[in-house]
C-alpha cells in the first residue's frame, strides 16, 4: 500500500490546458501497442449484447406489480468488443506477471497458475454454500486441511476460517479478545497500537468499539517495551503488534511484550500480514500471542486481483479458541461437519457469532492449500529464507546511496526500509516513484510506515531472481542519483506510461464517481 505526499493526494505541477502536450504524432492518439480506450458507455448501446438466450416460455408476471418501467441505463457490447475492451484496459496495468512489484507490506509474489486451475474445478467452483454437508465433504476437507496447516505453521491450537481479508481477520481477532474479556466480566476499553502500524489496525479496533492509543517506537524501529509496560493497566484490553513489523524488522521483545500484556490482564493481537518472512522458522504461538490473522493473499500467494478478494483466517490461543466465530469445520472420524447456527447450539455456546454470510473464501482456500502443498514444510521454510535474503540483498546493495534508517541495527526481514534523506531540495519520494515507473517498475510502498520521512518500503519477495534484483538495483541507483543531483526531468515523470501524473486533488475536490451522459454531466456542472 502507499500514499502520496504524506497521505495527501498529488496534483501534478503541470495541469495547464494543452501545456507540454508531447506530440505522439498520431491521429488516433494511440502509440502503436499502447492503445487508448473509451468507456463502455461511450462505445456500447442499450440494445447491443454479447449474450444469447433461449426464448423464455410465455407466462404471466408474478412480480407483485413492481415491473421495472424505466430503462436501467446500462449498455452492452458484443463479445468481440467486450474482449477487446478489457484486453486493452488490462494492458494499461502493471502486474507481477510483468515485472518486480516491490510494494512493501503487500507481498506481491508470484501467483502459481496451478492454483487457478484447482480453484476452478467444478467440485469447488460449482457448489452452493448451503448444499447438504454430505454433498460437500471434499470442500469441507479443504477448509479443514488448510486450517490444520495454518495451526501447525503458527503453533496455535485453533483457527477461524471465515474472515474475508486481513482487516476482517483483525476484526475477528479483536472481537474474540473482547468476547473473552467480557466473558470474564472485564470491560476494558483501550487497544494499544504502534505508530508504525498499518491503518487497518486502529481502524479495526475502532470499528469494534475500542478506543485506540499509540505505542511509541524505539530509534531502532521496534516497539518501545518500557513505554508499553508503563501504559498497561486495567483499562487496556490488549495490543495489536505487527511482527515482523512494518519497518521490516522482527520484534525481538515479542515474548516479553506478550508476557507484560498478559500480566496486566490484556490480550495480544498480532498482525500477521508479514508472516511470510518467518513461516517455517518461527511459530507465533511460541511468542505468546492470542490471535493473529494471516493474509492468504500475501503469505500464501493467492492473487491480489487488483484489490482483492483476499482471505484472512485467524489463529487463536487456547484462551481465545472458545470465542471463535461461526461457522467452522470439524472432523469427526472420517466425516467433516460444519458447525453453524443449525449445529452449533449445544457445543459452541461462547462463539461470538457469525461475521459473514456463508463460510469464507473457498476460492482462496483451494489456492492457498495448493500453494502450501506444493511447497511443503521444506519449501515454505525456503520461501521465508529467500524472501529475507532478497530483502537484505537489496538493503545492502542500496544503502550506500539511499538512507536506510534502521539499516545499522542489523539485518531486515522480508522488506527493506529507506528514507528520502539526501535528495536534492524539491525532490521527493514521489518523484523517485514516478521516475521508476518510466524505468519499467512498479514503485515501492511510499510514505508508509509513517515513522520514517518519505518512507520507501521495498519488498522484493522470494519469487524474484538475483538477476531481476540486480537489474532493479541498477535502475533504482540511477534514479536515486538523479534525485540527489536534482534532475528536473524527474518532476515530469512518468512520460512513457499510459497517463502522466494525475490530478488527485481535483478528483477529490469535485468527485466524479459515475459516468453521466454528456448532456447530464453538463447540466450537473
Amino acid at each position, binding site marked *: 500500500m502507499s500514499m502520496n505526499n504524506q497521505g495527501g493526494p498529488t496534483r501534478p505541477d503541470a495541469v495547464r490546458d494543452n501545456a*507540454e502536450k508531447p506530440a505522439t504524432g498520431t491521429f488516433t492518439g494511440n502509440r502503436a501497442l499502447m492503445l487508448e480506450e473509451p468507456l463502455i458507455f461511450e462505445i456500447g448501446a442499450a440494445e447491443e449484447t*454479447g*449474450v444469447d*438466450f433461449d426464448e*423464455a*416460455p410465455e*407466462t404471466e*408476471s408474478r412480480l*407483485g406489480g413492481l*415491473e*421495472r418501467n424505466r*430503462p*436501467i441505463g446500462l449498455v*452492452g457490447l458484443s463479445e468481440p468488443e467486450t*474482449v477487446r475492451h478489457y484486453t486493452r484496459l488490462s*494492458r494499461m496495468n502493471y502486474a*507481477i506477471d*510483468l515485472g518486480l512489484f516491490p510494494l512493501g507490506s503487500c507481498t506481491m509474489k508470484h*501467483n502459481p497458475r*496451478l492454483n*487457478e486451475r484447482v480453484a*476452478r*474445478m467444478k467440485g*469447488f467452483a460449482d*457448489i*452452493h*454454500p448451503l*448444499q*447438504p454437508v454430505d*454433498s460437500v465433504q*471434499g470442500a469441507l476437507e479443504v477448509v479443514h486441511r488448510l486450517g490444520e496447516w495454518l495451526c*501447525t505453521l503458527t503453533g496455535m491450537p485453533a483457527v477461524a476460517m471465515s474472515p474475508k481479508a486481513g482487516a476482517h481477520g483483525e*476484526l475477528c481477532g479483536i472481537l474474540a479478545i473482547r468476547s473473552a474479556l467480557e466473558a470474564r466480566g472485564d470491560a476494558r476499553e483501550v487497544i494499544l497500537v504502534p505508530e508504525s502500524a498499518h491503518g487497518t489496525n486502529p481502524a479495526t479496533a*475502532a*470499528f*469494534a468499539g475500542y478506543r485506540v492509543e499509540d505505542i511509541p517506537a524505539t530509534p531502532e524501529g521496534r516497539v518501545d517495551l518500557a513505554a508499553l509496560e508503563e501504559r498497561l493497566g486495567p483499562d487496556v484490553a490488549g495490543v495489536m503488534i505487527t511482527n515482523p513489523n512494518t519497518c521490516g524488522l522482527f520484534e525481538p521483545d515479542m515474548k516479553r511484550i506478550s508476557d507484560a500484556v498478559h500480566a496486566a490482564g490484556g490480550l495480544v493481537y498480532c498482525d500477521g500480514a508479514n508472516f511470510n518472512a*518467518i513461516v*517455517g522458522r518461527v511459530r507465533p504461538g511460541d511468542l505468546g500471542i492470542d490471535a493473529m490473522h494471516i493474509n492468504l493473499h500475501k503469505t500464501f500467494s493467492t*492473487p*491480489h486481483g*487488483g*484489490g*482483492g478478494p483476499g482471505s484472512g483466517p485467524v489463529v487463536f490461543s487456547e484462551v481465545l479458541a472458545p470465542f471463535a466465530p461461526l461457522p467452522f469445520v470439524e472432523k469427526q472420524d472420517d466425516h467433516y461437519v460444519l458447525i453453524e447456527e443449525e449445529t452449533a447450539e449445544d457445543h459452541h455456546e461462547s462463539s461470538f457469532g*457469525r*461475521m*459473514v454470510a456463508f463460510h469464507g473464501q*473457498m476460492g482462496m482456500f483451494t489456492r492457498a492449500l495448493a500453494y502450501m*502443498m506444493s511447497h511443503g514444510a521444506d519449501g515454505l521454510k525456503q520461501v521465508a529464507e529467500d524472501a529475507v535474503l532478497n530483502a537484505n*540483498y537489496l538493503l*545492502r*546493495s542500496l544503502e550506500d546511496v539511499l538512507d536506510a534508517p534502521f539499516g545499522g541495527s*542489523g539485518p531486515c526481514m522480508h522488506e527493506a526500509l529507506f528514507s528520502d534523506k539526501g535528495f536534492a531540495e524539491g525532490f521527493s519520494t514521489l518523484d523517485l516513484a514516478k521516475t521508476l515507473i518510466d524505468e519499467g517498475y512498479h514503485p515501492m510502498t511510499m510514505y508508509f510506515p509513517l515513522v520514517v520521512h518519505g518512507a520507501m518500503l521495498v519488498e522484493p519477495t522470494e519469487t*524474484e531472481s*538475483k538477476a*531481476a534484483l540486480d537489474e532493479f538495483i541498477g535502475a533504482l541507483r540511477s534514479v536515486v542519483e538523479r534525485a540527489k543531483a536534482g534532475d528536473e526531468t524527474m518532476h515530469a515523470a512518468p512520460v512513457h506510461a499510459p497517463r502522466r*501524473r*494525475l490530478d488527485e486533488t481535483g*478528483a477529490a475536490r469535485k*468527485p*466524479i464517481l459515475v459516468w453521466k451522459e454528456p448532456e447530464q454531466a453538463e447540466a450537473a456542472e
Partner: protein
Amino acid sequence: MRYLPLEPADRQAMLAKIGAPDIDALFADVPEEARLDGPIRDLPNHASEMAVDAAFRKMARKNSAAADMPFFLGCGAYRHHVPASVDHLIQRGEFLTAYTPYQPEIAQGTLQMLFEFQTQVARLFGTDVANASMYDGSTACWEAIVMARRITKRGKAILSSGLHPHYVSVAKTMARFTRDQIVHSAPELAAEGDTDGLLDRIDDDTSCVVVQYPDILGRIADMSALADKVHAHKALLIAVVTEPVALGALTPPGEMGADIVVGEGQSLGVGLNFGGPYVGLFGCSQKYVRQMPGRLCGETQDAEGKRGYVLTLSTREQHIRREKATSNICTNSGLCALAFSIHMTLLGEAGLRELAALNHAKAVCAADRLAQIPGVEIVNESFFNEFTLSLPLRARRIVRKLADDRILSGVSLNRLYPGEAGLANGLVVAVTETTSDKDVEILAAALQSVLESAGEEVSV
C-alpha cells in the same frame, strides 16, 4: 522448487554481498527460544504439480457439483451461466496479479474498470453513486447500518424479517460490540412479508430500516410507503438485494426511495464457489458520498489534460484516517467486481432484461408445476426467480433424501432458522436460466414420490 528462482550459487553470492555467514545470521533478531530447528514437523514436504493436482481432483470429486445434477438452491447465492469470456479476461495477468491501483499512471486498466463498475451498480440500484466493492452482501449490509448510524447519529436499526438470516446474524454479532440496537424477528411462512408491519416500529431513535428485495422467501414488496415513513423520521432506508439479476425486471430500490442500496453481486460473473469469494455492492445518494465505506474511483485529468482515473476521497479510509476511518476495509473484492462488470457489459441493458425475464418465466413455470404435487403449497404471491414451498413434512429431511438421489432441491428453512419450528416445513427453491424443464420434472417427480412414501409411512 518450481516457484523459487534462487539457485544455491545465487544464495551464496548474495550472502557474501550482505556480509552474512549464513542464512541463520539474517534471523538473528529472533530470540533463541523461538527459533525452529529443521523443517516444520507434522507437515509433508514439497510435492510436484501433478501430485497436488491429483490430490485436489480427488477432493473435488467428493463434492456434488451443481452442473452434474438438478439444482435449485438460492437464498443469497445463485447459479447463473457465466460466459466463457468473463473467466478468460479476469485471468489476464495484468488484472489477476495487480495490486490495488495505488499508482494510477500504471493502473488505468483497473481504475477505468472500477469507474465503469461503479456506474453499472449505481444504475442497476437506482442510486446516484456506488463504491468499488465490499467483501460481500452481508458485510456491505452491516457497513450500511454503520453508515446510517454515522449519518443519523442514532443507534437503532430495524431489520425486516425478510432479510437474509446470515445478514441478520452479522449485524447482531457486530451490534453486540458496537452497542447498537437491532430490532428483528423471524419471518413467517406467509404470502406477505413484514414491510407494512415495520411501519409501526419506526421512531425517532431509528437510524435505519433494512429491507431485502426480493426477500429471503422470494417475496417482493413495494418499499415506497416505508421510505416515506422512514424519511419522515429522518432515518434512512437501506435496501438489500441478494439477486441483482432481479433488478433486470424490477423497479430498483433507489427509485422507491432507498437511501442506501447494498447487495451481493455473486450472481453476475462470479459463480457459486461454496460461498466465497463474492462481491459486495454498495450504492447510495450523492449527499452521503463522504460517509461511504470502501474504495471509490473517480475521474480526473493527467498533466497533459487527458482523462484518467484515480482512487479518491481516501480521507475516508483507514490508510489515511486510521481510527477515524469510515470502515476498516482495505483489500476488497476487486477481481470479482471485474467479473461482475464484464458479465454486465456482455449482457447490457437488453441482455440483462432478457436474462431476468427468462429467470422469472422459468420460475413461474416451475412454481406452477410444483404446486400440482399433492401436499405442496407455494407460499409466495410474488416472486422473481425464487419461491418458498410449504411442505407437509420437515423440509430438511426431504432435502437430504433428495440429495441422496442426486437432486439438490433447495434450501430448507430449518438450516437457516434452526430455532423456528414454524419455518421447518419451508423449502426455498430457486430457478434460473440454468434450470432445464427436465430438471423441474425430475424434482417434481422425486418430491412427489418422497411425499407419497412418507405419507404411507405415516398412515401405516
